[in-house]
């Protein structure tokens, strides 16, 4: 896209999520006691109340929970159509990531479609995007 993305303001909680792509990793906070993924990251496990949390790489695979194809030119320079979506990660279905679905025709996007993360560098962060999962031959 030719339009400059808005970017999140980084802090100690969200920083690893937005920068893990530098090493090709999608980092999600995880409880070190009961293994629950915690998103958005809070440093508190709502399942077991542990404060022992750490960021761990996940597979980067997920499914499209829901999506929308945008047609409106909200600002000059947007593509004719683009897809926003919520993606649930394969490791835990209630971790949902807002994202754009890329590398495919927006008309081919559908509910429950398997997707794979990729990263796009913007300034000091690596924005997670998702593309249809290509199964290896």
């Amino acid at each position: 896209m030719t339009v400059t993305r808005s970017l999140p303001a980084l802090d100690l909680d969200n920083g690893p999520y937005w920068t893990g792509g530098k090493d090709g990793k999608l980092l999600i906070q995880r409880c070190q006691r009961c293994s629950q993924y915690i998103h958005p990251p809070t440093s508190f496990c709502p399942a077991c109340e542990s404060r022992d949390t750490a960021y761990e790489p996940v597979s980067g695979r997920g499914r499209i929970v829901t999506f929308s194809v945008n047609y409106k030119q909200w600002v000059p320079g947007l593509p004719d159509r683009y897809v926003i979506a919520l993606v649930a990660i394969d490791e835990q279905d209630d971790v949902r990531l807002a994202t754009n679905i890329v590398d495919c025709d927006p008309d081919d996007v559908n509910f429950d479609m398997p997707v794979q993360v990729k990263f796009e560098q913007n300034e000091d962060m690596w924005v997670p995007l998702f593309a249809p999962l290509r199964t290896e031959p």
Partner: protein
Amino acid sequence: MTDYWEKKTAITGIGQSKVSRGADKSALALTIDAALEAIADAGLTRADIDGLATWPGDAANGAGIADVGAPAVQDALRLQVGWYSNCSETAGQFGAIFNAIGAIAAGYCRHVLVFRTVYEATARKTSFANALFKPGQRVYGQFNWFAPYHVYSASLQQSLYFNLYRHKSGISDETVGQIAVNGRRNASLNPAAVYRTPMTIEDYLASPRLTSPLRLFDCDVPVDGSAAIIVSHVDAARDMPNPLIRIEAVGTSMRYRNSWTQLEALDTQAQPKVAEMMWNRTDLRPKDVDVAELYDGFTYHTINWIENLGFCGRYEAKDFIGDGSRIALEGDLPINTHGGSLSAGRMHAYGQVHEACVQLWGRGDARQVKGDPRVAALTTAGGPLAGCFLLVRE
């Protein structure tokens, strides 16, 4: 039934400024128009107003969604109050009313002026207004999770919920459009509505696609305007000029994850448990509702609320709405009788509060619901924001 405190409060007066696609006076002046009308309608004077509440409070950003806060109104009217508040993080826009109930219960005040002012028509002529983000902006807070993804408007965010609802329910575009057509039909009978030219379902279907499944005519209309109500202790209300409209029950809860991305009830939004709370606080049932003023920031909000309030079952709204006759003025459940935010203008649920009282007091003229309506249901907002309440005229 427990004698919940909201039952000891009443709406005793209403006011609304001129609502337009571009005002000839300031947002504060519109607010004063609405406030003075409501105070006079209640048979009160400025000196009687001892409480003041609004949603969300002065946003101080020029985007028009909230250019007037409680301090500006208090000072302009020189009110002397026992309590005042804004409240942006609450059960949707009705949080101001819910807080007023609490303040009356606590004995801080007896007559609360509650107002909601929007100036979004003017703001849009002068800036990139009502945007979630601007290109290049650094985004703080809960919306940072959407920041890089070209989510420039609430319509994109809400489309995520609506598309899933559409997928699960199988509702057709033609049925969704009945909400817009119904609003326009009612607006044609409302001299204060901003869009009154009749709309057909073909007009709706021909309106531009914004972000699937939303079309332009699924969206409410930004306006300049202010609405005000007086919420009073019922003991005082019984001696006031208007027939008593009691607040019968409220739904104020948030029992889901309070997040625009992690909300469990994605396709029904946060409404089901909010509605459940309201019905648990009254002996009334959905069949007792005579008129329903349901939030219509987008058509889908209204459709969600029809189901979530229990007027029909889950994913059955498509059959309930059908050809639109059931929700029309003459139907079993008249909805958004003034035209709603879709055609009367986006007064952000407070147009609906004003209209519910108009109907319960029999002031609807050409759009008055027949049969002396006595019970009104009101709802607001989408995503993790949801609030609802029932009004009963005695």
